[in-house]
């Protein structure tokens, strides 16, 4: 019984941890972002937060973290985001975040450049990264 509870707790905490968090470089002066700021950055409506210029990065379109991130932060599905960006592209108002090839690349890039902002699974957060928003 005890074992069962522990394993349940472990699974629970694992699922809790398997959630994308928004990260910037550990050397960034940013501390925390609000949900509105994260939305505006990843919607292409702003290029700054607290005076820091930020470029958002996306995980590959097929990744579960990306789907989960947009569902949690914007409440939008992959198709809805695609339709949103079609509107933005053809109005000349902006382009979607640049796509990295893997979460390894995401960690490496965000960790090395203070002007990138991305999201990764909480378990992948390296010492070079700083979590600025948890959905």
């Amino acid at each position: 019984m005890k074992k069962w509870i522990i394993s349940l707790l472990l699974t629970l905490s694992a699922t809790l941890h398997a959630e994308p968090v928004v990260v910037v470089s550990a050397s960034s002066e940013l501390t925390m972002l609000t949900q509105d700021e994260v939305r505006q950055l990843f919607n292409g409506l702003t290029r700054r937060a607290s005076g820091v210029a930020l470029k958002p990065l996306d995980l590959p379109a097929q990744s579960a973290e990306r789907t989960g991130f947009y569902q949690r932060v914007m409440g939008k599905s992959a198709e809805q985001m695609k339709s949103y960006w079609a509107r933005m592209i053809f109005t000349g108002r902006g382009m979607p975040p640049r796509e990295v090839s893997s979460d390894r690349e995401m960690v490496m890039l965000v960790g090395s450049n203070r002007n990138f902002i991305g999201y990764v699974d909480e378990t992948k957060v390296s010492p070079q990264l700083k979590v600025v928003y948890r959905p």
Partner: protein
Amino acid sequence: MGKALSVVLGASLGISPLWAIAAESDVEQTLRDYQQRLEKLEQQQVESSLTQPERLRINGFLSAGMSRAEADTTLGDDGSYIDGSGDKWSHDSLTRAGVQFNAQLTDKAEAVVQLFASGADDFNAEVQWAYLDYDVTESVSVKAGRIVAPFYLHSQYVDVGYAYPWVSLPSEVYQLAPIKTMEALEATWGFNTGPVSHRLSGFWGSSTVDGGPRTNNAQYQADDLAGMNLTSRWRDWTVRAAYSAADVSVGQDDLDALIPATALGLSFDEVYTYFAGLGLQYDDGSWFMSGEVARLDFGNWYPSSQSAYVSLGKYMGKWMPLVTWAEVDPRDLDSSLPGPINDGLAEQQKSWTAGLRYSLTDSIALKGEFSYYYDFSDDEVSTTGFFVTDPGAEMEDDHATIVRLSADLVF
């Protein structure tokens, strides 16, 4: 012999770890160095490709549609809708495609060209947009050239069917002023007030607007076309207010083809005309709501109009049912004009549309729509709304229907 061999073997095995360890650590060190250098190179490459803007970006859209109208008139012949829908299945009216090229000239200047072809125009490719976009500061940009006439909430992507849930945008509002592009100078300021993002634009230019089949393709020349609009977004809400005005002229020949203007002593020369629109949208990924009101007001005897629509849709996985109500109403009819002139020029109708959108893949959508149009005439005026009929005809039983289907994609 066997013993000797085993001794030798044993010795060599015993010894080998010694030199092997030394060699291995060398190799490992070298490997580690290589790996580090490789990672660094990879990082530099990826980083520079991400920080440097792409020189040229190409995006395209395509809509393949078909439609059929059931519009009996009192004179026997069927009417057709201004989008080209008639009594036989039409594959041209809703079919269109475009390719947009965005070329980054410097880190502040961008050239944008959009080629567009539509079935309504026999697929003659034309340059729909061609402009230079210059970032004066990070939040202020200026566009010059052939640009979108920003009259409506969804003006900027009216041809990109994939970008909205309707097969075609509610015509009562979107065909009120059938202007799509203009030659103009436009300045836009983007700013945020807390969680609300705003875009304020002002423009000045001119445009020649083809009135389409409902006006025998009369050309409306809009000079000193100037306007302001503000779009504000907060979370799932978008609000847009727009006001534009111009001096509009219509050639006497075009006017005479429409009504006996010369005989009545009517002309249409540099008439102050304004367009005002207000739009509201809500989209939380689960529900979709969009509504707009618009008014087109001519400062002379020509009938002014007011129109509105409201749409409500529900996202259900890959499906999205949508229902729309719309109306267009003539305003300020000049009572000194003979009744038939007002009847011929004024446009009155209401409509209910039920639609369904299906996401085939994340870049292809299939859509279908059924529209019921009614209330073309009342005590004051007797019109055929946006249906084109033989002169003097009225809509049979004061109603008509249209079915529209389309496949929309972006690439």
